[in-house]
């Protein structure tokens, strides 16, 4: 009997939680009960260091690796073929890093189940924060989990400054997905800003283990899968345990990895980023890698609800003032506009012990026809130019455009961007810059990218909105 949820059942069950709830409320049905039971009893991914060497989970993992190595090279589930998926498709240094590897290790886990016949198998993880040496199950001559190319020895210890609890706590408390999970990119292998989880513990462990692990063929070392399972555990902890929302940018949620992976039978799988959101709620769960004291354990239903709400998260404005205008920006022609503000609400955002934020929304933006400029936003800086440094205390933030912004299918005629002005106005206020708190003057300054000669730089903006928001809250 197959205890694992098939993709079809998962999609039926997970993506239509509302329908399932209705089924339950209308007297229940067998499908609903069966699916609920499967979700409740979904496999637990455990810390490998808490398992005995003869634990069935480790035995199954060894068995699976042995069988994958024995498959013919023509079988896409073959050990080397699986590593080549990583070599040829893995996204690094951008926001697809986390969902791609989530899909990759999930389908690997499914292949392990299929080849061993153990449908309860859940891939264990290596918690390098609590056990800084490569765990014992990965060593020993003739052990299929061993890899002789490693640089690290059995007694080598990863450094606390890369994987220690203080470092991880700092990373897991970062609220911004783009900082936590790496920056925006429009294609799978485009380099963006490497996030703190990827750039510090993730990259370090690849180098620390060394050998195959130091290359894009790293999945040849069985440690790889348990390392990335730990990265997955960190993401689950960040997102579900600590309730930090993932981005809801449709360029991310709607992106499809196609067809990078194969399922348990070796058939190609097309996977959308948004498909992966519910994996840790419906398909597996973790023995917690970073327990957070004082948190109540939530049921699957509550987590489902959280993810649903998270996908629809919006900024709630306590108050806002919108200015409709038709503004044309050009390099060398910065724009200044005064946006009115209610004085009492403005003051509430200026007080540092208040959680309210002062956000500027730049809406109805028609991007330039080429992405060779971006826009810097200043507050109370009428003489701002492209040469004004971002260290200037009037600088508030910037926004830029993707190539795909020029594609009409992506709604290029009405892009909007948000810049948080809070810290800037808080810094400027003691200097007496906001004696008249009934308005905020903002400057939008188009700036050419370094080493580029901008050709088509005209940017149209037809809406500015200044709003006071409460902090982003999902619960």
């Amino acid at each position, binding site marked *: 009997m197959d205890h694992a949820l098939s993709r079809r059942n998962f999609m039926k069950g997970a993506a239509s939680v509302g329908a399932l709830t209705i089924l339950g409320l209308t007297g229940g049905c067998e499908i609903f009960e069966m699916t609920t039971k499967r979700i409740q009893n979904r496999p637990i991914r455990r810390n490998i260091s808490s398992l005995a060497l003869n634990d069935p989970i480790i035995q199954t993992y060894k068995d699976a690796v042995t069988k994958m190595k024995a498959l013919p090279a023509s079988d896409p589930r073959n050990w080397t073929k699986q590593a080549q998926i990583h070599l040829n498709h893995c996204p690094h240094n951008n926001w697809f890093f986390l969902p791609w590897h989530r899909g990759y290790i999930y389908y690997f886990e499914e292949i392990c189940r299929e080849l061993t016949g153990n449908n309860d198998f859940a891939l264990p993880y290596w918690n390098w924060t609590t056990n800084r040496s490569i765990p014992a199950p990965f060593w020993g001559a003739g052990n299929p989990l061993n890899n002789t190319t490693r640089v690290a020895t059995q007694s*080598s210890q990863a450094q606390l400054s890369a994987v220690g609890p203080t470092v991880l706590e700092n990373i897991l408390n970062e609220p911004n997905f783009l900082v936590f999970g790496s920056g925006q990119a429009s294609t799978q292998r485009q380099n963006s800003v490497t996030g703190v989880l990827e750039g510090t513990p993730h990259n370090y462990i690849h180098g620390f283990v060394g050998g195959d692990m*130091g290359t894009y063929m790293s999945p040849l070392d069985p440690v790889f899968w348990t390392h990335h399972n730990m990265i997955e555990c960190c993401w689950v902890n960040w997102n579900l345990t600590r309730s930090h929302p993932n981005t809801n940018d449709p360029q991310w949620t709607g992106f499809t990895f196609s067809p990078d992976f194969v399922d348990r039978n070796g058939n190609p799988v097309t996977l959308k980023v948004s498909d992966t959101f519910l994996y840790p709620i419906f398909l597996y769960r973790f023995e917690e890698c970073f327990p957070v004291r004082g948190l109540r354990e939530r049921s699957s239903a509550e987590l489902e609800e959280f993810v649903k709400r998270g996908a629809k998260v919006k900024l709630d404005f306590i108050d806002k003032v919108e200015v409709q205008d038709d503004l044309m920006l050009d390099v060398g022609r910065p724009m200044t506009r005064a946006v009115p503000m209610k004085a009492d609400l403005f003051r509430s955002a200026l007080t540092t012990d208040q959680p309210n934020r002062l956000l500027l929304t730049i809406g109805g933006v028609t991007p330039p026809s080429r992405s060779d400029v971006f826009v810097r936003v200043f507050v109370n800086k009428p003489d701002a130019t492209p040469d004004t440094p971002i260290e200037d205390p009037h600088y508030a933030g910037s926004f830029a455009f993707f190539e795909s912004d020029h594609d009409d299918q992506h709604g290029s005629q009405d892009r909007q961007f948000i810049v948080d002005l809070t810290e800037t106005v808080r810094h400027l206020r003691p200097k007496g810059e906001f004696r008249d708190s009934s308005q905020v003057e903002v400057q939008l300054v188009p700036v050419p990218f370094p080493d580029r000669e901008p050709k088509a730089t005209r940017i149209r903006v037809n809406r500015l909105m200044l709003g006071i928001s409460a902090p982003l809250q999902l619960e």
Partner: protein
Amino acid sequence: MSRARGTYRRFILLAACAAGLLVAVGSPFWLDAHVSAEQTSNVHLTHTQPRAVMAVPDAVLQRAPSLLILPVTQINNETLTPVSVYAYLTWSDPKHGNRPARLLLGQISIFPANQPGTFTIRLSQEFQELLKQSPDFHQLSPLLVLELRPIHSQALPPMDLTIGPVEWRTAEETTASG
């Protein structure tokens, strides 16, 4: 522009004073460090000169940044030796006879070991507390130290790495698009 020149001169002065102080107190850690006062220049780290030191502008500290961005724009590492880059803040500590104090801001690692990328260090609560508790911290000649280190205890084989202008960002400067 004259204000910018003044700021630039102040950085040079700060960096030179701090470097002089560090040498004067005889801390061998810093003796082979390159000191650059120009915040916007590239930094080159090599197996023979694995450290670089640069001034941290007043304006940066006044903004209480939460992120340090390190753009590793180029790396020659033929042996694919796994390496990390450590970022420290160092200053002369008046509480301890102006001896150099230092705080590890964080580290990043290169994967694969010859792959450039733009890396992020999230500045710790300790760093934020330091700025909060010492409003005149910028007067203590703070310097940013970047250090190239092998992940395994071994001598660095020939390699060189270029880090583009580092960037200090507040949380709000990581903008969200609509």
